[in-house]
């Protein structure tokens, strides 16, 4: 029985779904790939938070000009492909700004990582801004009115009364954005950033095992994102239950 399975596995061709023979030798590509992808995604979303809050507040401003700037930014970044944005940022500003080729943790090349993070953060801030805006708008308007009626300024009302309540709406959506980012960031491979997808591609082209490295990449992405989104759902449900109490 065991021999039969071993023989079947040994006989698997390069295009087979289950041919994971590359693993013993090339597992490190996937380990570094996972780390790279997670680092890229987390840093990008974190960097996006402050600009996104600014964009959201600008979008909610009464001043047409300020509102317009924020609206235009969000429209541009949401209506063009991420790969295009990435390419423009990489070959535009970062062909002028020369970053030193420094390896972080031994495998993160700063000169590619930083443009990638900035592009992803700029893109993400457009989406996160809409998350913030929706979260702020979901807070009852009477809250700001009550704050203002006590003599608090608009900013104090926002900071002390509205935002703390909006966080509850924002956090789950922000976590979902992180899940999206883990998937979407696979596009940075196109610019030679060594994320999980790049690892899969490199292994495939080195070993001539064309399919299974991508299958493994898919399994890894799934194993990160599926539990994460389930956890977010559970937290969301608990928060909603808290509301009804």
């Amino acid at each position, binding site marked *: 029985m065991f021999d039969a399975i071993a023989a079947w596995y040994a006989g698997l061709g390069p295009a087979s779904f289950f041919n994971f023979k590359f693993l013993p030798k090339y597992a490190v590509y996937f380990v570094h790939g996972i780390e790279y992808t997670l680092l890229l995604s987390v840093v990008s979303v974190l960097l996006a938070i402050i600009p996104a809050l600014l964009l959201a507040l600008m979008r909610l401003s009464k001043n047409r000009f300020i509102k317009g700037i924020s609206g235009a930014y969000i429209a541009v970044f949401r209506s063009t492909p991420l790969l295009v944005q990435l390419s423009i940022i990489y070959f535009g500003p970062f062909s002028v700004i020369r970053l030193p080729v420094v390896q972080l943790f031994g495998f993160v090349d700063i000169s590619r990582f930083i443009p990638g993070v900035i592009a992803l953060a700029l893109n993400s801030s457009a989406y996160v801004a809409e998350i913030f805006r929706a979260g702020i708008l979901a807070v009852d308007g009477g809250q700001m009115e009550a704050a203002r009626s006590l003599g608090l300024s608009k900013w104090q009302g926002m900071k002390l009364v509205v935002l703390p*309540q909006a966080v509850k709406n924002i956090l789950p959506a922000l976590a979902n954005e992180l899940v999206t980012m883990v998937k979407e960031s696979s596009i940075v491979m196109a610019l030679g950033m060594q994320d999980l997808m790049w690892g899969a591609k490199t292994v495939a082209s080195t070993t001539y095992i064309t399919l299974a490295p991508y299958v493994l990449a898919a399994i890894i992405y799934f194993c990160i994102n599926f539990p994460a989104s389930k956890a977010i759902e559970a937290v969301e449900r608990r928060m909603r239950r808290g509301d009804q109490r």
Partner: protein
Amino acid sequence: MAISGETLIQVRHVTKEFSKGAVKALDDCSIDIAKGEVVAIIGPSGSGKSTLLRCLNLLETPTSGTVHFHGVDITDPKTDIDLHRRKMGMVFQHFNLFPHMTVLKNIALAPTQLGLCSEEEAQKKAMALLERVGLADKAQEYPIRLSGGQKQRIAIVRALAMEPEVMLFDEPTSALDPEMVGEVLEVMKELAHEGMTMVVVTHEMGFAREVGTRVVFMDGGRILEQNTPQEFFAHPQEQRTVDFLSKVL
């Protein structure tokens, strides 16, 4: 009609339009509020009562006309409205307590944040005020644990913590279960007896008659009639007033 003669709020020719003039909520309203008065604003729904009240502390910006508070034109964009709002407490129909803070924090928030007193002093004052409305035991509760009547009494206390010179009430009992209306009116009555200047948009005719020093009747965005409660209810001058009173009394 003024009680002490000193005018606190002076509203002149205030008009408020919504939806770019499609809706005229207020149409050329002028009124004076003197210190110590308890003015009850009544009228059918949609008559502009709440809009007029909200124009007094500029939660609603008049389309035209002026509002003076202590002789200062607060409708002037150069006026720092936040400074004047401190002296005008407001109580809302839906309480608008801050759900993420304890009762004590709700009350102490504005005085401490605005640097009027220390956290400790603010809490001490808040406790004293809570004592007055019989809710000292709720200081550490969150608003979600309170009944409507308790919430509204705390909303009143929260406004009082700023030591306002006038209190604006926007249908303070309309969202309450009937058995809780009394406890809120009781607090308001006490306030009135202590000499607080009050402007109250209300459907409680009993309160208007008993506590009010003046009743203002509004319809269609205009102030149609105003008088002392005795005169107003006994001898309404306008046909619209007569019609309205016949429906609500």
